[in-house]
């Protein structure tokens, strides 16, 4: 006998699928957006809504001071490994943010970061679009809110201020660290 009660009433759990096939991974656009922001600190107008407003920012100037004072700070570059290899803040480590992958997939790597130092995430994007989600994920992992911050203006701002960089794209003789 056909299950009439179920007729037309069974909710297929893979009604999930339509979304799965329509939403293809988006290409990472952080590079493009960052280019548009090279003219200023962040390229934003005062009226423009800041993404991830609950994520605390730290200025490049403040980070530079901490580094010079040998403060306990770890800097994390969230760009892909190729971009990191080409150019990054001197002494930064690389944990890439990939918008096509759930950031929780990075948990095992993120938890390697020390629990007793200030951790600053940065991206090559104008409004911390890639670094701020990493900050939020660190909170999920139990890191204190005031211990993890996003670098305001990211790599662009750092570069504008002439602070130390490293990477293979830098002119020969200026590479701070071999990649």
């Amino acid at each position, binding site marked *: 006998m056909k299950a009439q009660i179920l007729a037309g009433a069974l909710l297929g759990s893979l009604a999930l699928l339509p979304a799965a*096939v329509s939403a293809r991974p988006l290409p990472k656009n952080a590079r493009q957006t960052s280019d548009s922001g090279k003219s200023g600190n962040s390229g934003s107008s005062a009226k423009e809504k800041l993404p991830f407003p609950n994520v605390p920012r730290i200025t490049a100037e403040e980070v530079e001071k901490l580094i010079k004072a040998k403060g306990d700070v770890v800097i994390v570059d969230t760009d892909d490994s190729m971009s990191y290899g080409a150019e990054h803040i001197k002494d930064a480590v690389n944990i890439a943010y990939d918008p096509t992958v759930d950031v929780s997939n990075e948990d095992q790597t993120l938890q390697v970061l020390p629990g007793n130092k200030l951790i600053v995430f940065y991206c090559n994007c104008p409004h911390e679009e890639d670094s701020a989600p990493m900050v939020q994920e660190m909170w999920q992992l139990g890191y204190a809110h005031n211990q993890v911050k996003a670098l305001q203006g990211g790599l662009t701002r750092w570069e504008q201020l002439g602070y130390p960089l490293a990477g293979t794209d830098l002119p020969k003789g200026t590479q701070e660290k071999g990649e």
Partner: protein
Amino acid sequence: MSRWAKQIETQVGIPTVCVAMDNIVHYAVTYIREYYTGMPLRFVAVPFPFTGQPKSVDVGYVTGKDMLNGGPLMAGVVSALTSPLTANEKISGAPANESVEPRLLPPDTEDNLRALFDAKEWSDYNWINLPTEKKVMAMLRGTSHKPDEIIKTVTITGGARPLSVEKVAISAVMAGASPEHFPVILALATQAPFGNSTSSMANMVVINGPIGKKLNFNSGTNAMGPYNRSNAVVGRAFTILSKTAGDLRNGINAWESLGSNFQYNNILYAENEDNLPDGWKPLHTQMGFNPDDNVVTVGTGWTSISSVGGSQELYPVHYLMRDYMRSLTASGSAATIVMDPTVAGLLQNAHGFKTKEQLSEWFSQNAEKTAGNYWGNGVIQSMVVPLALQGLEPYASWRKVPNETMIKPFTNSRAIHIVVTGGKIQTTWFVTDFGMRRGVKIDDWA
């Protein structure tokens, strides 16, 4: 690998060939190509395993046969890099869409519908409640949230799925849950899907707050055993939810070599808050929640080691726990020690640990292992070595010491969690490597 290959080809313009292991290369060629990169990539394959082998074996792989296409491996590499694109490889644009499942399945017999659910891998292969519209609507009455509300977008291989309240209700029905469980399951859904790795990754779920008693979650005798309905059905719902929302299918994109029996129930239990020693806070209040908040916390890990017998005076219990911790990877300093209230009382009264935090700090300072043991683990190799090579301390320094040097790998005491549960029958405990994420407030999903 496919992502990097695509990146090199598209951004740098260099022809690329992927060298994959033969255990996974067909997945790479088909599924990734169709649903992930959206671009045909060329592959050759070597035998598995690759890591952990003597160099002579790896050299043999390079000089040997291409396990995907036949013929010598290096000839395959050269051919992949130099031969013109085939007609199939010239096809551009997004791949054809996967077939779309309807929201409502057509009527059929119960047996056929059960067979369909099994064939689609929509269950854990235990007996499920078929999710009729009536049952799902009843489940939805367990929350004030609307059925079409999107809880999160689950990133899956090759795409993203909006996870709605209604879809979670389907899993809750299938698992045998009742509407009063639904807010807990919705809170769990924010953490879905569960871990999926090539090793035996699993989850641990801890319930805190008054809801533990209200819904009769077990935090007493057999808290972690099959003796309680709430523990059973809510834990199971997370499995079914993870498999369906996460599109996890055996051998297609779920690749755990051994798998994990923990994944049937996700080690769900409640903390025994009534029997915590004075000064020992429940897990959720350690995370900043109020004692009256109802919270579910999800951890991810692999390993659980039982004390087997009760604690003895000859060797303090925390010494034994520390010794067991040497067997854990210490990835991200993660550990969760689950102990009976009698053990917690012993640790406070006999050994002076006034708080959980003091005990966690003691473990961080005293759990040691050799550098060789630490670096010899595959997870550490893949997660920590790249950062060590970039100069992150203390890992960069640990890379330079002899293998037999003792290190203290649990550098972050806040990642060492203590949870008290059990029936005060025996002074037993588990040492596990589960790393707990921040808890989720269940009340937000009522």
